[in-house]
C-alpha cells in the first residue's frame, strides 16, 4: 500500500504487447471492479484509466514493457491481483513458440 493505493507490476510477455484484444480484455476486467484501476509505464505514473480502451491503446506498450497497476477502493486488492494475473497469463491468447521465436 502507498497513499491508500494497492500497487503491483508485471512484465508484458505476450508477443504483441498491449494491443487491441488484450486492451479490450484489460478494460473489461477493470470495469468488473468498483475500484478505479489505473495503469502506468513507470512506478510514479503518469497513470491511465484502465477502464478506457482508448487511453490504454494510447500507452502503446509492446512486449517486454513493465506495466504498473494501482487501485483504490473496496476491491482494490482483487482488481490489481486480477490485472497482474491477466498479464501473466498472456491475456489467454498466446499461440506459442513460433510467435515467441519471431518476436526477437
Amino acid at each position, binding site marked *: 500500500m502507498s497513499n491508500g493505493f494497492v500497487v503491483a507490476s508485471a512484465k508484458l510477455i505476450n508477443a*504483441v*504487447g498491449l*494491443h*487491441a*484484444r488484450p*486492451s*479490450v480484455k484489460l*478494460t473489461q476486467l477493470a470495469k468488473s471492479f468498483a475500484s478505479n484501476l489505473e495503469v502506468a509505464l513507470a512506478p510514479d505514473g503518469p497513470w491511465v*484509466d484502465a477502464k*478506457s*480502451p*482508448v*487511453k490504454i*491503446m*494510447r500507452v*502503446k506498450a*509492446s512486449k517486454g514493457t513493465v506495466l504498473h497497476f494501482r487501485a483504490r477502493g473496496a476491491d482494490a486488492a482483487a482488481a490489481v491481483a486480477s490485472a497482474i494475473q491477466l498479464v501473466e497469463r498472456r491475456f489467454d491468447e498466446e499461440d506459442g513458440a*513460433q*510467435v515467441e*521465436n*519471431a*518476436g*526477437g
Partner: protein
Amino acid sequence: MGDVRIKGRRASPGFAAGEVVVLSRNGAARVATGDPAREAQALELAVKAATSELAELARRTQGEEADIIGFQIALLGDAALLEPAIAAIANGAPADHAWSSTLDREIADYEAAEDEYFRARAGDFKDIRDRVLAHLTGVQVAALHSGGILVADDLPPSRFLAVDWSHGGAILLASGSASSHVAMLARSRGVPMIVGLGRGVATLTGEVLVDAGAGEVVIAPGEQERRRFEAKRQSDLRIVSEAATLRDKPAVTRDGTAIAVHLNISDPDELVSLDPAVCDGIGLVRTEFLFHARRGLPDEEAQFRVYRRIASWAAGKPVTIRTLDAGGDKPIEGLTFDGESNPFLGSRGIRLSLARPNVFRVQLRALARAAMHGDVRIMLPMITVPDEIVAARAMLDQEVRALVAAGIPARRPSIGIMVEVPAVAIAIDLYDAEFYSIGSNDLTQYVTAAGRDVAAVADLADASHPAIMRLIERVALHGRERRREVCLCGDIGGDAEMIPSLLHAGLRSLSVPPAMLARTKAAIGAVDLGVAQPMIVSRKP
C-alpha cells in the same frame, strides 16, 4: 502488344480474375446546424447508430473477426474518444469536422508509432471515423458487390466483412499494410490481397488478373496472358496441396544435386509464422521499409533492433541484408535527389549511400552490431565500379573499429555485392566481393534497355533473353572458380519456367519470397541436371 502489369506487395497470396470495383471514401457534405447542442446530439446519435451497426455485424461473425469488431465497439463506447470532439463542438465546430479532426489526431498518433502492430491500428480508427461520418452525412455503408476485385486507397475491416467473399474476388490497395487487420482477415479467409500498388490503381477499370502471391496485377489481359495465368493458377493449386510436406524439405534436383533456397523479405513481419527450418537462410532483406519518410530516417538503435530480430529468427543461418537501395522507383523524401531526368540511371543504391555517408555509416554500424547475433552479411546494391566496394569496405572497417573501441559489441560482417549493372556481370572478375547476388530484375532492364515500369516495352524486358542467361552463366562460373557464393534474388528465381535454365546455367542458390518457397522447391525437384538443357530460347515470341 504486351499487356500492362503493375506490382505491389503481397498481403495475402492467391489468384483472382474479375471486374474492378473502385471504392471511394464518401465525400458527401453535411449542412451544419450552427447550434452546439444540436451538433453534439447529432454526433452522439451517429456514434450510437455506428455502434449498433457494428453490434449487428458482430452477431454475424466469430473468432478473430468478431474480436476486431469488438475492439471497435469498445473504442466507440469509450467517452475518452468522444470528449475532444464534444469540446471542439462546444467551441463552435460542426459535428463532422470535430469528429474527423479528433479521429485524425488519433490516427496520426498511431501512424507515427514505432511498433508496426500499433501503426496498423490506424486502420481501425479510420474505419470508426468513416462509419460515424457516414451516419452524420447520411451516407450508408453500401453492401459491396461480391466476386469483384475491390480497389481502394485502404480498406477498413468492417467493409471487408460487409462483402460476401464466397464467390471469389480480391483486394487491391493503393497504400495499406500487410500487418493491418484487414490483411489478417484476408489471409485467414484466403482472399488474395495486394498492398502498396500506388495511386494509379484508383484509375483501373475492366477486367484484371490478380496474382497476389507475386504481388502482380495484369490489366486488360490478352488471350496468351489469360492462358499463362490459368496455367499458373492450376499449378499453384496442385503445389499448394503438396506444399505442406514439400516446403519443409531441403531442395534437391531429380539427379540429387542440393540447391540452397533462401528467402527474400521486405519486412520482418513476413517471418512471423515461418519456421527457419524451411529455408537455407535469408538471401535478401530489403531495408527500404525502415526508411519511411513520414517517420524520419531510422536511428542506429531502431535499425539494430530490427536486424537483430531477423538474425535471431534465422537461428544461425545466413542473413544477407542489403544496404539502403533507395532512388530509381523508390524515392525517399529528404534523402534521394529530386528531379532526376532518369532516376533508374541516376543516384540510387550504393551511389546514393556514398553520397550520403552520414546515413550510410549509421546503417553499417547497426549491421556490425547485429552481426553479434547471427550470421549477418552485408550486400551492396547497384555496384558499378570496384572502387565503390573499396570505399564501402573502408567505411565499414572504420565503424567497426570505432564501435569496438567504444566497448560496444560488434563484428565485421562479410561484404558482398548485387550483380545488376551489366558492367559488373560482364567483367565480374574485376569485382573482389565476398559473395555475389544476381539481381535479375534490374539486370534485365539494364541489359534490354527496357524499363521495368514502362508497359509499352514490357515484352522486351524479358529475363529469359539469352544475353541475360549468358551473363548469369558467367557469374556462376566465376563464383565456382573463386569459391565465392553466387545467389540469384530476382523474380525469375521463383519462376517455375525459368528455374531449369538457371540451374543449368550453374546457379546452386536461389532466393525467393516466402510465398514462392513451395513452388520453387517443386520446380527444382523436377530438374534433371544429368540431362542436357535444350537450347535456351526466349520464352516470349
